[in-house]
Each structure stands twice: as structure tokens, then as C-alpha cells.
């Protein structure tokens, strides 16, 4: 054993190095590979063209999510309904065909366990602490919430992992985001990660793996940790992780693909040893005061464009960097906002509660708590709730949350990526605003010309009730 104190990231990295090359790159073993329909067809095609098999189909799990419409998938007689968009249908069919051909486990569109790949992984116990997890999707960082080293890869790397179960990588630098103190009432993990991105900027974590540290994370549910780690990429970091602890073990125990019996005991013993050693050194460190975090919204077209809900739309000239001033001017023009306008007076026409960031049971409970006994405002034209998986959907229905949403005038949908990205029928019309629990407020992200305000599930629910961006604390007293 190495005597030098190591970080959580270094311990997981060290345990997965197959070999190190002379030039310093390492061949890293990948324990778990998640696959979806958008970034995999060209990888399977590459394997076919080269006549290469999938090395470890048993370590690979595929589920469609990005393209799937979130409307009913079966007719009243239980037959699969066709997908209207021919290109989406072809891409979804390709995943089904490729997984069958290469012998990969596939959770299909009508399977009770289907959902967003980053919700399904932890939920099935496929994503485990101390593992290396990859997926052709930048929000793979989510799985850092269970203490895994998880990161997004491109399609060439998807093909590389399918063929070799490894990746050639250079070790990243390490970055500590230490949060001191506790979050106030009405302030959620989503508000915290938006605040963190506002502090470090969208390139703050580039070249680094972030470890989130502090009592606030120890007290946070696994769902909350997945939300925080999910948006590491919006801070530029390919991966973000939190030390696995008893909360994670309790969450994973008895999940379908989690280890059992003696294997479970051996696993937890190792998982307990993974926390960063006292005295371990990070390449970069940022400290955040939790008490300063308010319910947070975005006002621009970059996830770093955040402000507390009580603030005003910033004046572009208030930024020190001239290029940021220019970016802010362009953002505000796209967003149709006036500098100095109160954020709590910004009217919204659409509400989206869902995405790999915020579609787990706790997110839906938080939204339902605000909506219970209330109704969406007249000005809100479209408001949908999209559970992250079929299992989340079933749990929510068992708790009666679906009725809360429907009674409040919101639509209750089937699981998928939905309005997070404009790849399926759920889109925000041009020029309209959406209070969205997703992760990106980029230009055109929710549809051409759509204006996105990133918020927590509770804040999205509050916006639905009042028809404008609203401090949820005014509704929950």
C-alpha cells in the first residue's frame, strides 16, 4: 500500500490502472459502461466494420432515453405505439438491434425499469462506489454521487471501451470544492451546484476531477449528491465525486444489480477505505459558504450566469472582463431581459420538471410539496413532469404525487430526457421562457429560440404556481 496520503480520486484511479505507458498515459480499466441511442450507433458500426466483438458485454448496460417521446408508449391493447419522427425511430431501432447483435443487456422503451441512463444506473445498483463508469454523455459525472469515478466520453471512446473495456487517459488534476456550513430552508442541492458553478465558472474545473467535501454532503441524500455531481461538467470538470458512506450503502443495498452476501460485505469494507486521506493534497481548492447560497436561477445562456432569486438581472457593465460584458449583452438580448429588471418579476410560459439532474423521487416530492392544493397560473401554457425512470414513476404514483401534479394542471409523462434537449417532441417554443430543472441554458438547448431559466424542482413548481420566477420560500413559509 502506498503510504502517501491520497485523494478519493487517486485511490479509484490507482485501483484501475492496467498499465502506465512511458509517456505518462495510463490504460484505465472501465468497470461499468452505460450506453444510449444517440452516441452509440457509429461506435457499433465501427466494431462491425473492423470485425471486433464487445469485450465485456456483461459490464455494459443499454437504455434508450434521449429520443423517446414521453407520451404513452403502448396503446390500450398493449401494442407498442410507433414513433412519429423517422430519424428518432431509426436511431432507437439501431440501439435495439446493436444490443441484440453484440449480446448487451437492454432495458427497452416499454420495460418498467426504462429511464434516463443516469437515473437507471444507480437505481439498478449497476453504478457502484469505487468503480470507473463511462457513458457517451457528459452528465455521466452524476454517478460520482455514489462515489464512482464517472465521466462522459465521445463516440470513438465508446467504441474503444466496447472493444477493450479500457480507455487511454492522462490523469486529471484534482480540485476540492469544500462547502462550509449548512444550507438554509428552501435551499436545495440544485441551488448549491448552480451557486458553485457561478463561483468557479464554466471552465473552473477544466482538466480537473472535483471532489465535493464538507458536512453538507455527508448530510445530503444520494439523490441530492447525484444532482450535485451531475452538473460538474457545467463547471468544466469531466467528473465530480463525493466520498461513499453509509448513506450510499443503504441506498444501494438490495438493488437488483448490487452485490449480495459475502460479496457485499467485502465491497463495503473496501468502499469505506476510499475517503480522501487526511493530509492528501488537491491541485486546486475552493471554499463555499453554504449559508450564502440562496434559491438560485440563471439569467443568461451559460450555466455560470446565476443569481439569487432576490437579485436583479445584472448590468453587463458590472462584469470586470470585457468579453464577459459582451457575452452578457448577447445573452440578455437572446433571453429578452432588461438589465436591472427584478428576477422575481420575470414571467414564464413553460415549466419543465425532469432531466438527469432533477427527476428522481426526492425531486418529484419537493415539487409536489409546493404544488399540493395549488394550481398553475393562467399564463403558464405548458407544464410537464417527467419522471427519471419507470421505477421513479411507479414510486411517485404509489405516493399519489401524480395526482398532485395533475390536479395542479401539470402533465404527468413517461420517462426520458424530454425537454432538457431538443431531440424529442418536448420542446419550448421560440421566444418563450421555461423554468426548467435541467442542466443547460445554452442558446437553442430546449428548442430554437427557447429561453431557459435553470432552477430547482421546488423553484420550478413555485414558478408554475405564480407564472413567474418566484422565491419558493414565499410559498412554503
Amino acid at each position, binding site marked *: 500500500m502506498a503510504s502517501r496520503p491520497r485523494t478519493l480520486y487517486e485511490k479509484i484511479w490507482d485501483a484501475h490502472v492496467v498499465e502506465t505507458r512511458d509517456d505518462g498515459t495510463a490504460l484505465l480499466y472501465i468497470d461499468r459502461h452505460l450506453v444510449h441511442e444517440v452516441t452509440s*450507433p457509429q461506435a457499433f458500426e465501427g466494431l462491425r466494420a473492423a470485425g471486433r466483438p464487445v469485450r465485456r458485454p456483461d459490464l455494459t448496460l443499454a437504455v434508450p432515453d434521449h429520443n423517446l417521446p414521453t407520451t404513452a408508449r403502448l396503446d390500450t391493447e398493449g401494442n407498442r405505439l410507433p414513433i412519429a419522427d423517422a430519424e428518432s425511430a431509426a436511431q432507437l431501432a439501431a440501439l435495439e438491434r446493436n444490443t441484440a447483435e453484440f449480446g448487451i443487456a437492454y432495458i427497452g422503451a416499454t420495460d418498467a425499469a426504462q429511464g434516463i441512463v443516469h437515473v437507471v444506473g444507480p437505481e439498478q445498483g449497476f453504478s457502484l462506489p469505487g468503480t470507473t463508469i463511462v457513458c457517451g454523455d457528459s452528465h455521466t459525472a452524476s454517478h460520482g454521487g455514489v462515489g464512482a469515478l464517472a465521466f*462522459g466520453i465521445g463516440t470513438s471512446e465508446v467504441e474503444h471501451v466496447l472493444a477493450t473495456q479500457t480507455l487511454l487517459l492522462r490523469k486529471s488534476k484534482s480540485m476540492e470544492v469544500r462547502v462550509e456550513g449548512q444550507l438554509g430552508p428552501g435551499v436545495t442541492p440544485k441551488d448549491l451546484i448552480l451557486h458553485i458553478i457561478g463561483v468557479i465558472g464554466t471552465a473552473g474545473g477544466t482538466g480537473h476531477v472535483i471532489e465535493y467535501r464538507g458536512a453538507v454532503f455527508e448530510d445530503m441524500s444520494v439523490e441530492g449528491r447525484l444532482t450535485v455531481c451531475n452538473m460538474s461538467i457545467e463547471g*468544466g470538470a469531466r467528473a465530480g465525486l463525493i466520498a461513499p458512506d453509509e448513506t450510499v450503502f443503504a441506498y444501494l443495498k438490495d438493488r437488483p444489480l448490487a452485490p449480495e452476501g459475502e460479496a457485499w460485505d467485502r465491497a463495503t469494507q473496501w468502499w469505506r477505505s476510499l475517503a480522501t486521506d487526511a493530509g492528501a493534497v488537491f491541485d486546486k481548492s475552493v471554499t463555499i459558504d453554504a449559508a450564502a447560497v440562496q434559491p438560485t436561477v440563471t439569467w443568461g445562456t451559460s450555466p455560470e450566469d446565476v443569481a439569487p432569486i432576490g437579485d436583479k438581472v445584472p448590468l453587463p457593465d458590472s462584469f470586470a472582463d470585457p468579453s464577459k460584458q459582451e457575452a452578457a449583452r448577447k445573452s440578455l438580448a437572446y433571453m429578452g431581459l432588461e438589465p436591472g429588471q427584478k428576477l422575481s418579476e420575470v414571467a414564464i410560459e413553460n415549466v419543465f420538471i425532469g432531466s438527469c439532474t432533477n427527476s428522481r423521487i426526492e425531486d418529484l416530492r419537493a415539487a409536489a410539496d409546493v404544488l399540493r392544493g395549488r394550481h398553475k397560473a393562467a399564463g403558464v401554457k405548458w407544464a410537464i413532469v417527467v419522471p427519471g425512470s419507470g421505477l421513479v414513476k411507479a414510486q411517485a404514483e404509489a405516493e399519489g404525487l401524480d395526482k398532485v401534479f395533475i390536479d395542479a394542471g401539470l402533465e404527468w409523462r413517461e420517462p426520458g430526457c424530454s425537454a432538457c434537449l431538443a431531440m424529442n417532441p418536448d420542446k419550448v417554443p421560440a421566444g418563450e421562457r421555461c423554468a426548467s430543472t435541467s442542466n443547460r441554458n445554452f442558446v437553442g438547448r430546449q428548442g430554437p429560440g427557447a429561453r431557459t431559466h435553470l432552477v430547482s424542482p421546488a423553484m420550478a413548481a413555485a414558478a408554475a404556481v405564480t407564472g413567474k420566477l418566484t422565491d419558493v420560500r414565499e410559498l412554503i413559509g
Partner: protein
Amino acid sequence: MVPLREVEGRAIPFGAKNVDTDVIIPAHWLKTVTREGLGRGAFETVRAEPGNVFDDPEFASAPILIAGDNFGCGSSREHAAWALGDMGVKAVIAPSFSDIFAGNAFKNGILAVVLPQEQVDRLLEVARTDPISVDLEHQVVTTPFQDRFAFELDPFRKACLMDGLDEIGLTLARDTAINEYERRQARDMPWLAHGTEKAA
């Protein structure tokens, strides 16, 4: 991969910062099952603006793109690199790149050159009227005006680009080491072997 040694020609003086991959290629272009033809969707929202550099005939088929800080941030979609390649871009010069994009570019034979902001500013100026040259072997960007800007490049990536190496083929040749690792992991971390097989 086609070997890449030198890129010479006009450079698109884009210069924008924090260009995300949704801007490089919007999501509705991602419903393809091939790597080809994505150039048509590249920078779609930018091209909707009159007078944009991408539709300036001066820069038609330019093999170099000059961008600002944090180019390629956001989604991991390799479609961004495919779209650039389909446009004919073989090198992108910027003060910094997102990690995933830089990797995707390299795997598609596109060189991501990192230079300090003031040198990028100089190249943006030159690119308006004159060609630029990127010499991969000597790791230097030059202009017809005696500008000479050296850049860093990972030696492994350099070798792969210059020789057009197949990275998967290289790793498959390390099969013995991977087998050995799997034996070690089965012994030390037996709980990982389950994978997707339902626990009995």
C-alpha cells in the same frame, strides 16, 4: 485515421468564447446513425445571423478555425468534431478547450492547438486577410508576417495524428495486460464481476 502533418490555408476568425457543443451542432442533428454530412448543421444558430464569418465566401473550405476560451464546452457529442471535420476543418486554435471536445477532435484527426490569448488575438487579425500555417511536427503556428507561435502537444496524441494510428488496434495489442488486470480484479474485487447478470 488519415495522417496529419501540416495544416495550411485560410483560418475562420471566429474568436467567440465558451462556444458549447450545442452551438457547434444543435441536438436535432444528432439523430443520425453515421458520422457523415454534419457540416450542414455546423454553427446553425450562428449562421442564422447575417454577415457571420462562416458564410463569408472568403473563408469557404478554410481548414483552420480560430476560437476563444473554453471551446467545445458542454455535451460530449462527438458530432461536434464530425461536423467540423465535415466542414473541412483540420485544426482549431483557441486559448483553451473543454477536455471532452479536445479528445474527440484528436480522435477524428483534428488538431486542437492551445495558444495564449494575445497570440490568438494576433492570429484573428492575420486571418482576416492572410493564410496561417500549423506545423504539427515542429509544433509551431506561423503567418506570412514572421509570427511564430510554439504550442504544446501530448506526445502520444502527436504520434497518433502524424502516423494516423488506430488507437483501438494499439490497445487490443495490450490484450495480455488487460487479461492480467481482469484476473487481479476478479481476485481483489469479486463483487464487480456481477455486471448486468441479475443476482441469483
